[in-house]
């Protein structure tokens, strides 16, 4: 594999990790979020600051980064609990803009210059780059997927599904909406923090615009395209949206337009995503598989 393909594959992996986190919030718990890039950014910035200012190694900083991002997710998740659907969508857009503005305007976060000189990750005395870094990202992605699989079968996951389908009915069954919405928010933002840490150590130079609102749109598009609430949806979405710009490369200037038209057609004709319930793939598979299986 050449270095270029590995770069794309690594970025797809990181996007998939962050999108899996968004999927827990949006797909599992039904809480629309258009500000996920903010938490991706909080993860990346805390990893970058811990590495450059505190001099911690990636492995020592990683648990801290994940905890910091999840704590901020918990804090920002609290006001989001008061609002629903459309209000929630706008509130999360607002969070994204405010977080980006803080990164951009407060000198501690490097201001407009961003943070550079983030060291590479060391593992067993080897500097990870290229293929080895990709394998590390793949390992974390599999870890995240395994967690999502476990969570979707745990009591907490089932409670989130119930809240997504009908909040008042779930609440009357004794499921606390506050507790499980926050749980989904914390899990989702923690995954964004992990993705952010990997991103910071891979790109090694970060600035506020890397985590602006369009990135949130991209992340939500990944989840929607793949199929919200499915296990593999975010991975499929990340692969497709990550590979498309390369496939569309001959279109040069018209690339982004095509991208957007594709998303529009997708949402217009397959709103459940590629792997969601009622989608084409889902229907084909239910025809192939005998009844009782899904």
């Amino acid at each position, binding site marked *: 594999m050449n270095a270029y393909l590995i770069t794309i594959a690594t970025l797809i992996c990181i996007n998939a990790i962050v999108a899996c986190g968004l999927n827990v919030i949006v797909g599992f718990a039904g809480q629309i979020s258009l500000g996920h890039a903010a938490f991706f950014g909080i993860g990346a910035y805390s990893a970058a600051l811990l590495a450059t200012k505190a001099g911690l190694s990636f492995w020592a900083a990683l648990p801290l980064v994940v905890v910091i991002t999840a704590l901020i997710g918990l804090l920002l998740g609290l006001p989001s609990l008061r609002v629903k659907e*459309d*209000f929630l969508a706008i*509130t999360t*857009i607002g969070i994204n803009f*405010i977080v980006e*503005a803080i990164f*951009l305007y407060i000198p501690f976060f490097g201001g407009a210059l961003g943070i550079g000189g983030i060291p590479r990750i060391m593992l067993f005395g080897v500097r990870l780059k290229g293929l080895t870094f990709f394998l590390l990202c793949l390992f974390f992605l599999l870890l995240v997927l395994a967690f999502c699989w476990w969570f979707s079968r745990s009591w907490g996951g089932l409670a989130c599904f119930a809240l997504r389908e009908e909040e008042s009915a779930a609440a009357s069954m004794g499921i606390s909406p506050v507790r499980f919405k926050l749980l989904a928010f914390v899990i989702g933002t923690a995954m964004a923090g992990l993705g952010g840490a990997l991103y910071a150590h891979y790109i090694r130079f970060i600035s506020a615009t890397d985590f602006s609102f369009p990135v949130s749109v991209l992340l939500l598009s990944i989840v929607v395209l793949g199929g919200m609430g499915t296990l593999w949806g975010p991975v499929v979405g990340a692969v497709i949206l990550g590979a498309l710009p390369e496939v569309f490369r001959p279109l040069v200037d018209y690339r982004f337009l095509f991208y*957007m*038209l594709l998303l*529009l057609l997708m949402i217009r004709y397959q709103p459940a995503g590629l792997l969601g319930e009622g989608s084409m793939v889902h229907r084909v598979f239910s025809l192939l598989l005998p009844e009782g299986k899904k």
Partner: protein
Amino acid sequence: MQLFIEQLLNGVAMGSIYALITLGLALVYGILRILHIAHAAIYTVGAYVGLFLFKLSGSLIIGVAGSMVFCALLGVGIERFVYYPLLKYPPYVPLIGSIAVMLAIEELCRLVAGPQILTFQAVLPFPQFQIGGITVSSTLTAVYCITALVLLLLWYITSKTELGLAMRAVSQDIPIADAMGINSHLIVSLTFAIGSAIAAVAGSLVGIYYNQVYPTMGTVPAYKTLALIVVGGLGSVPGAVVASLLLGVAETLLIGYANIPLPRDALAFIAMIAVLMWRSEGLLGSR
């Protein structure tokens, strides 16, 4: 004191422009409960078409009127092709569709007209005032007059005509309105047409006000107007106007007098989150 009054006048003009852009959004939200982010793209198209027709014909009136017609058709097209078929899905589905439309139209503008900033040099046929050493330029007068006219017309349409009655009925309950013999889809389309035509006016006006027309001019308004309709109370047109004027004045005065470390564009969202926490139905909303 003189400086303060000049700042205030500029702030009110700023707020009037916000109000013109936000109106269409509030109308659409009121009737379909959709966050119509692509509205800001219609506003960009409005500026481009206005500029193009103005250069072609040399008449500002033809330019703005043509732009209003074009944008009204564009708005109805978006409604028919994207929103109406998606109404049965949860609200995030039309929202994502709307974002895709917005970005696609922005790209189209860039591909057709080029990424550079175009100038919109037109003299607005409005008088200039001089009161006690304070000059009110003809552009400011134009912004005030046009905003007042649009608001008055909109108030008349929504509260005095049969169309307005039908619009209010559809915004309350579509199936019941249908049962009462109202062609609700037609009313929804007309609402989009009205909102988009106002966006065309706003786009042309902003193009002249700043003497700039460029593909991403709708980006900041797209998100700021969302905050404004929340602050005003989702779907409340008077609330949206009040919120827009307050924000315009607050932004201008805070930039002029207070040294806040955050950019002015973040202010709208901070105000919005504060309003949501304190009065989640918005300033003039009822829920």
